[in-house]
């Protein structure tokens, strides 16, 4: 395995070209196609420089294994996942690294229904990858590539079954969009027209590099905040590079934490959802919103794969994470930022209130999301040590270590996508959060 390559249940990611390159992408696609054996694969990519190149390697390798490809070219991954419910597929491949910075990229694998691959399936693909045992077929059995334009009208039609389109249209919202020069840029026009939005888009040229890290969070929201203020807009939002995550800016020009996205969706879907899945590191805001709406929250490991598969297993109607992610099982098989935006537009038009007012009853919680650089070879030693230290505090090992204390909790885990530890701390008082940060940093240093 290439050094610097990150393996997660649903794909491989790494910096281009040293860790992830055409050769790796090709072998990985051959392994996935060999695993699937037959059928048809939906393929899309984001707007990163390296995505087209990697996509070419993917297409070649899939058809060399005798499977057909339906190639959507540059497309948000949620659209691919949506389409995979409309027609029969055996799998999907998206070349996108979502929120990772440049020069990262990833090859993400989907099952036939458009879900991120499950852990056990993912490891089967890696076994084939490592063995190099690829199923290359003779010329007569080669697959073919069919180019396809995403039918955005189908997508919008399904959205219109979920939200009150007429009410949103009447409101004529002025909305500031920051798609981070990602793939959603080219679809914003159609979306805005559908809801009669007065759209003010910034950073909407997929040909250009990312203007800021492609992570929707209030740290990256300063441009949108400024534009909302200067234009008197009703709402602002930021996306990651593949349109799976979103965070919002209120009508007052204040960036909301990405942790607010999931709770806002629950509020918007009040009385329509009974059970929802979230992760062990999602903010207590989600519990609060769930309580308001009579929703039961189930918690699992971090990541889309774990969440959507638990949704399936438990028959939960929705799922989401504190990263600005939300999925609705009746609509599609994965996180979808434009679906989320539709739900929030529905919420503010229904309440006839701005976002700042809607979030004002949210409990005051302080959350810190910290990245702690630890060399890869030390990661598991550090985790072992922390496990020892906290063994008496009734630790939760669902994903890393979570410790709950009065008025505060924290979770520390190795990142699945980058070489670092992620420490999340949330508490009712800022001092509590600060003291825990000091405590953990001290323990890691030693």
């Amino acid at each position, binding site marked *: 395995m290439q050094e610097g390559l990150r393996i997660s249940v649903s794909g491989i990611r790494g910096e281009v*070209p040293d860790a992830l*390159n*055409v050769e790796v992408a090709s072998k990985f696609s051959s392994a996935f196609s060999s695993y699937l054996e037959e059928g048809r694969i939906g393929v899309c990519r984001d707007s990163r420089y*390296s995505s087209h*190149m990697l996509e*070419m390697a993917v297409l070649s390798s899939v058809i060399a294994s005798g499977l057909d490809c339906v190639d959507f070219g540059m497309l948000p991954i949620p659209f691919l996942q949506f389409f995979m419910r409309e027609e029969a597929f055996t799998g999907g491949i998206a070349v996108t690294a979502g929120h990772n910075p440049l020069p990262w990229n990833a090859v993400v694998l989907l099952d036939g229904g458009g879900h991120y691959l499950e852990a056990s399936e993912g490891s089967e693909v890696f076994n084939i990858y490592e063995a190099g045992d690829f199923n290359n077929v*003779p*010329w*007569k059995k*080669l697959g073919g590539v069919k180019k396809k334009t995403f039918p955005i009208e189908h997508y919008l039609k399904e959205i219109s079954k979920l939200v009150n389109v007429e009410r949103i249209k009447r409101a004529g919202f002025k909305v500031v969009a920051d798609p981070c020069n990602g793939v959603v840029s080219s679809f914003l026009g159609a979306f805005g027209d559908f809801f009669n939005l007065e759209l003010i888009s910034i950073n909407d040229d997929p040909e250009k590099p990312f203007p800021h890290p492609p992570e929707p969070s209030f740290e990256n929201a300063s441009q949108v905040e400024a534009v909302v203020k200067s234009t008197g807009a009703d709402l602002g939002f930021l996306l990651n590079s593949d349109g799976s995550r979103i965070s919002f800016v209120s009508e007052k020009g204040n960036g909301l934490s990405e942790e607010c996205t999931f709770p806002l969706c629950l509020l918007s879907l009040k009385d329509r959802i009974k059970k929802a899945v979230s992760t062990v590191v999602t903010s207590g805001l989600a519990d609060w919103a769930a309580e308001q709406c009579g929703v039961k929250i189930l918690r699992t490991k971090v990541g889309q794969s774990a969440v959507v598969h638990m949704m399936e297993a438990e028959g939960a109607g929705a799922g989401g994470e504190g990263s600005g992610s939300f999925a609705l099982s009746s609509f599609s098989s994965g996180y979808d930022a434009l679906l989320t935006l539709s739900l929030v537009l529905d919420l503010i038009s229904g309440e006839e209130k701005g976002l700042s007012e809607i979030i004002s009853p949210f409990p005051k919680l302080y959350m810190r999301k910290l990245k702690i650089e630890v060399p890869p070879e030390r990661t598991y030693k550090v985790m072992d040590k922390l496990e020892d230290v906290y063994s008496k505090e009734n630790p939760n090992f669902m994903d890393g270590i979570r410790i709950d204390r009065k008025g505060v909790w924290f979770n520390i885990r190795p990142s699945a996508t980058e070489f670092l530890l992620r420490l999340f701390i949330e508490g009712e008082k800022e001092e509590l959060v600060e003291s825990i940060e000091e405590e953990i940093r001290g323990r890691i240093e030693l």
Partner: protein
Amino acid sequence: MRISDLKISISGIRGIVGKSLTPQLIIKFSEAFSSYIGGGKIAVATDTRPSAEMVKYAVFSGILSCGASPLDLGILPIPSLQIYTKEKELEGAISITASHNPVEWNALKLIRKGGLFLFPYEAEELLDFYYQGKFRRVQKPERIEKVVEPFALHEEKILQFIDINLLRRNRLKVVIDPCGGAASPYVKRFLERLGAEVICVNCELSGEFPRNPEPVPENLLHLCEAVKKYGADVGFAQDADADRLAAVDERGNPIGEEYTLALAVDYYLTGKEKTPVVVNLSTSKVLEDITQKAGVKLVRTKVGEVNVARKMADIGAKIGGEGNGGIIVSDVHTCRDSFTGMALLMEYLARSGKKLSELKEKLPSYFMVKEKIKASFREGKRILNKLSHEFSDGNIQVTDGLRVDYHDFWFHVRPSNTEPVVRIIVEGREAELAKEVFRKIMAGVAP
């Protein structure tokens, strides 16, 4: 001894799809080429094989990976790709074609700046990049550019070279058989622009070749019948990548691929211009008669298009080629080009007012035996050694295998660079003599 069907050599990379020619291999080879070229534009074209799509995506990703930008020329004959590369001053080109090999094969052929195939020392250097994995992978790849009407440049070059008014005044009836290959989308319109009335055989892009793509007489039955049926002046057959040409006369008889070049040279020297001529060591002796009569020099080189092309450039020869139907005219480009060949032969017919059979009649006739036998590389050496002793009274040349000349026959025995085979060519004035010499050689070859 196990012999792989994958051939990585100075002529490129060739293998059987699904067996040895995998996407990973194609990617790495394209990465090596892109790294070797070191950026700039690389044109990519394919023939009509069904595996072209799989190979092309891999080639694109490999080129992009190492910083060059691919131009997508779609399906295009190899001479058109070479001309495009030269005229547009590109850094290189990759042709995805296994030319006359059966449909389960595919291959990459590499073209350098200036539109010639890689010189052997360049190819060696490229193979170093490949074997050592010396790839200059970039963080920010370039883009793929789609080229529309990629054949136009080639067509224009020929229209400038040929006496188009003469051809249009003397409307010829031509049957064309491009073997469903890379020429298929273009050749009908091309011949029509040369003023011909065109009947197509095997022009559909079916993906599977409708006949064996090698343009030798036994594969041209369909074409011969069509020439007779429609009372055409001439029939032409191209191979899958359209570098080689064979002709059928007005009676429906194949004139033999050696005579395609002979007639083209004969006409060039008498009807166009006196110029030295370059052919390879395996080409028919009739070229010696033609050049002698015209009083120009004939130079022979090792087998291989690039060897002939380079020698032509060196000595300023305007015409040359290879006896297997490869006509090279430097006015258009120093590459084997069936389109230029057709134009030249049509001009010959129009200007002379004679039938193709009559034009061939005028030339001395020879009988040629072409065979290949399986033999390992070591075995090949032994055979050459043995034959050079056995025929030591002849005029011996060892520049490329073994060529021995006698006054009434000659033969050329050459181990292939790419396959474990030895090619044997014998030519004599009399068929019986040629066959007898061939039998003698085969007896000598036997272990």
